[in-house]
């Protein structure tokens, strides 16, 4: 900005912004702090300084076998995203580079499938999964999440691919590049960042999906969303363990999210805000 800002003004804004930001972040911070407390400590009043015990983490693993739902989350979210990319990349590619008369209509129609409320198809999906033996299976859930995120994947990739200028292909051709050379040396390097952002955002969305993951699993295929939900039954106040499980469940996705803030805007607004 061209305007000179006095340091005093800047300090004022800084203080205000930090207070608000810390208030918003507080529930997460407090969860992390509580995860390092003992159970009696966790319910003995407000305190920002934990005793630093790792007991809760150890118990979450030894008593509830935390590793299993964690791996289920990894398999289901990564699996569904990779599947969606495999199906979505060719589609987005062709729509961006050789658009036809109906490309726009197809894109809008894909977006419209995203508007269908999940709960509206709960009954048929549940019955089909039951009849096909897919309830509580990782494969069923992976396919389910792939279908849910496919429209976002195609849309995001399309908005990225569309920004690759067509002239660059002509230039490459003039320089004598073959079709294969075009794809490997020109297009792929330009497409990789878009594909990577799409991958990241969709892993986040699949990791946090909390309708199908809870309803279609019980034990074996239950990912972290379903696992954490099981802590809601009022069997006592296990706040330290809840906090430890929660911290482990959100930490990887929080870090990925910080890296993908900008892509998030683009992906979730279908390119309407950039």
């Amino acid at each position, binding site marked *: 900005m061209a305007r000179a800002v006095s340091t005093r003004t800047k300090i004022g804004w800084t203080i205000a912004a930090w207070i608000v930001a810390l208030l*918003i972040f507080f529930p997460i911070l*407090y969860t992390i702090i509580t995860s390092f407390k003992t159970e009696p400590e966790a319910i003995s009043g407000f305190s920002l300084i934990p005793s630093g015990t790792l007991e809760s983490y150890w118990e979450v693993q030894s008593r509830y076998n935390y590793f299993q739902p964690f791996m289920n989350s990894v398999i289901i979210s990564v699996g569904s995203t990779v599947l969606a990319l495999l199906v979505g990349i060719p589609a987005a590619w*062709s729509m961006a580079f050789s658009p036809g008369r109906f490309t726009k209509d197809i894109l809008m129609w894909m*977006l419209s499938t995203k508007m269908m409320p999940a709960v*509206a*198809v709960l*009954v*048929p999906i549940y019955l089909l999964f039951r009849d096909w033996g897919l309830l509580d299976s990782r494969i069923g859930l992976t396919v389910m999440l792939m279908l849910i995120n496919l429209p976002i994947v195609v849309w995001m990739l399309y908005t990225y691919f569309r920004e690759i200028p067509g002239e660059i292909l002509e230039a490459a051709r003039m320089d004598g590049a073959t079709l294969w050379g075009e794809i490997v040396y020109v297009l792929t390097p330009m497409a990789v960042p878009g594909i990577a952002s799409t991958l990241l955002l969709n892993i986040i969305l699949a990791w946090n999906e909390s309708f199908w993951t809870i309803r279609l699993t019980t034990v074996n295929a239950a990912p972290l969303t379903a696992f954490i939900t099981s802590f809601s039954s009022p069997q006592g106040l296990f*706040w330290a363990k809840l906090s430890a499980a929660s911290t482990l469940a959100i930490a990887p996705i929080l870090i990925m999210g910080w890296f993908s803030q900008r892509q998030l805007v683009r992906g979730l607004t279908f390119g309407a805000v950039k």
Partner: protein
Amino acid sequence: MATRQTRTLARFMMAPSVILLLIWMVVPLAMTLWFSFLNYNLLNPANVSFGGLFNYRYFYTDPAFFQSIWNTLVIVVGVLLITIIGGIALALLLDQPIFGQGIVRILVISPFFVMPPVAALVWKNMLMNPSYGVFADIAHALGVQPVDWFASFPLFSIVIIVAWQWLPFATLILLTSLQSLDTEQKEAAEMDGAGFVSRFIYLTLPHMARAITVVILIQTIFLLGIYAEILVTTNGGPGYATTNLPFLIYRTALLGYDIGGASAGGIIAVVLANIVAIFLMRAVGKNLDR
């Protein structure tokens, strides 16, 4: 460039996505529609009969239905109000010169990445619990009676939790839009003597109008389907106080085993979502032309 060959190839590349989404969209929805006309209870699966509009009439006369529609609206409107107003304020704040802007942004955006069951359980237990929660501690320190949030204001509590999850999204999008505002325009307005308020009303707000529309529409689609937050906090209660339409359908289907009734509810949910969808598609479609 678009020879016949490449066009055929393009269609071929598009086919898997289109076919998958077509099946995904048509088959389950057609089944829901069909089930909604049946008397079909999972406890008595041998006795399925055609019931015409019975399920719709039954759903329509159920007092829980109107309550659930009302609760759905309260959640959507309440969360929208908080996130839009709060989001605009936060975006304006974060647009100011700040030391450590990157970290502040990261802190503000974080709640969006917290999975719904975690967000709801953390708020319900560690913040809102009337005996040991942080809010109760604050109340004790101030010498007032702590509030039993989920007993006294169950729906409001849910709105607060969901608003916390979606405030970052609104903020991020509004901030993105705010930062695309031409600084020269801002400076020109300032030099012409426009104060903060008039600059906000006549320059900033119109510039953000499109982003605000997008936030409203996208959030509405997600807010119409709020489920996990209710499941882990109030389970729809007390009574039907926090049962929204998705939760009512879930109750009817998987707890009441009433396939026909739940399907009729599902069709109503589709109609509701479509009303919003039409507006969103227009907003996004406009962008495609540019």
